[in-house]
């Protein structure tokens, strides 16, 4: 199971990479493996201000559908539009080409709810 040490994680199996006041969000290697072949990523919240825990999109695998949650309050600045044509990139490269959104947030990020790689590893056992 690939869990890069330089990322933060959520209990909903998303990863977060913070750079300044922007964060990139995707789903973890564990999540893509559990979902199986991903066939559709639907994100229609670009431009919206969302609270922590709100649904920013939906991911459809062959067998199941799963919501995507905001790891913290922010504005959805950008959606990885390449996923519209190639959702399988989430399976193939979850921490790279399979990224999902970029969030812009104001002020200092309260990341106390986020897990580091070690804690996430414990979570997924």
């Amino acid at each position, binding site marked *: 199971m690939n869990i890069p040490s330089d990322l933060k994680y959520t209990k909903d199996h998303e990863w977060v990479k913070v750079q300044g006041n922007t964060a990139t969000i995707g789903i973890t290697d564990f999540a893509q493996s559990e979902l*199986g*072949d991903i*066939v*559709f990523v*639907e994100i229609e919240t670009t431009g919206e201000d969302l609270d922590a825990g709100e649904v920013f999109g*939906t991911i*459809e695998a*062959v*067998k199941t*559908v799963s919501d995507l949650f905001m790891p913290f309050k922010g504005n959805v600045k950008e959606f990885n539009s390449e996923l519209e044509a190639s959702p399988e990139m989430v*399976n193939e490269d979850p921490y790279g080409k399979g990224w999902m959104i970029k969030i812009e947030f104001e002020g200092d990020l309260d990341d106390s709810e986020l897990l580091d790689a070690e804690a996430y590893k414990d979570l997924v056992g």
Partner: protein
Amino acid sequence: MKKTALYDKHVALGAKMVPFAGYEMPVQYTGVKEEHLIVRNGVGMFDVSHMGEFYVKGDKALALLQKVTTNDVSKLIPGKIQYSCLPNGKGGIVDDLLVYCISEKEYLLVVNASNIEKDWNWIKSQNDMGAEMVNESDSISLFAIQGPKTNDALQSLTDVVLSEMGYYTFSIGKFAGVENVIISATGYTGSGGFEIYVKNKDAEKVWDAIIEAGAKLDLKPIGLAARDTLRLEMGFCLYGNDIDDTTSPIEAGLGWITKFTKDFIDNDLLLSQKENGTDRKLVGFTMIDRGIPRKDYRILDADGNEMGVVTSGTQSPSLDKAIGMGYVKAEQKASGTEIFIEIRNKSLKAEITKLPFYKAD
């Protein structure tokens, strides 16, 4: 949670195991799309040992089966198989099943794993004629070897000439050195192949022999997730989704296995449905707008009125389109009818499609 005789093998092969109908079953090995296409284009093997097997024997066997099943069992001869269902006395379906005619006084019923106990109790409750019933579900393993290369993969394991066996026929013979194996030209994929019934004690030996014999044709183990996408592309009903205790065989498009040449449970009710029509019909549909239909999503008409409900849906790996089945009002069942599927509060356009969705070249 029960395990099939092959549980340790599946784990060693890297399968993802999930609870299904009371068993720990392999849902996928490498990926559902890849496994699906292996069956469509090559050959794959499923462990479906969770399925239930009942023997019905004796002078009264035929009478019991004529009463509890919809298809006409008197038309079967030894070596032939029928698809059928068990009506529940209220116009619904207890289960769908296969009926194997071993002899005029011995039949094998193959039922869904999730319904073994329910079916057994139901058939037993109808057995006032005193047919002998034996539940062998826990002692029989079942492998489905499916795909266009199945004959080539299996022929070296048996003297039974596989290419000469017609669809829905079976032989009982020697297979992989094991006697009394049921070799059945059936399956749930639409890509042809065989289902092999063996005693649990021989399961590992036969499974290994098939893996070895099939290696030259790249035979791979296939999980239950691909079994579901394969059957849905064919429009085959899945019990618990497309048919259940509240759906009639006529509504579900199973009129072809409902024969009024004999008396059976719900005979009059189903005959009246056949003659007068039903309010709703099970249909297939293909998404036009982007979205994937799932069980229990609502089906709407162009004005937003509810007209039915989705019973199965997926992204079809063969067609690369989202497909589904569901019940609609009978007057709206025609192929080409525009319908809408409610997905996350949006009405997405779809079109009623003639089944099967997938046709082999």
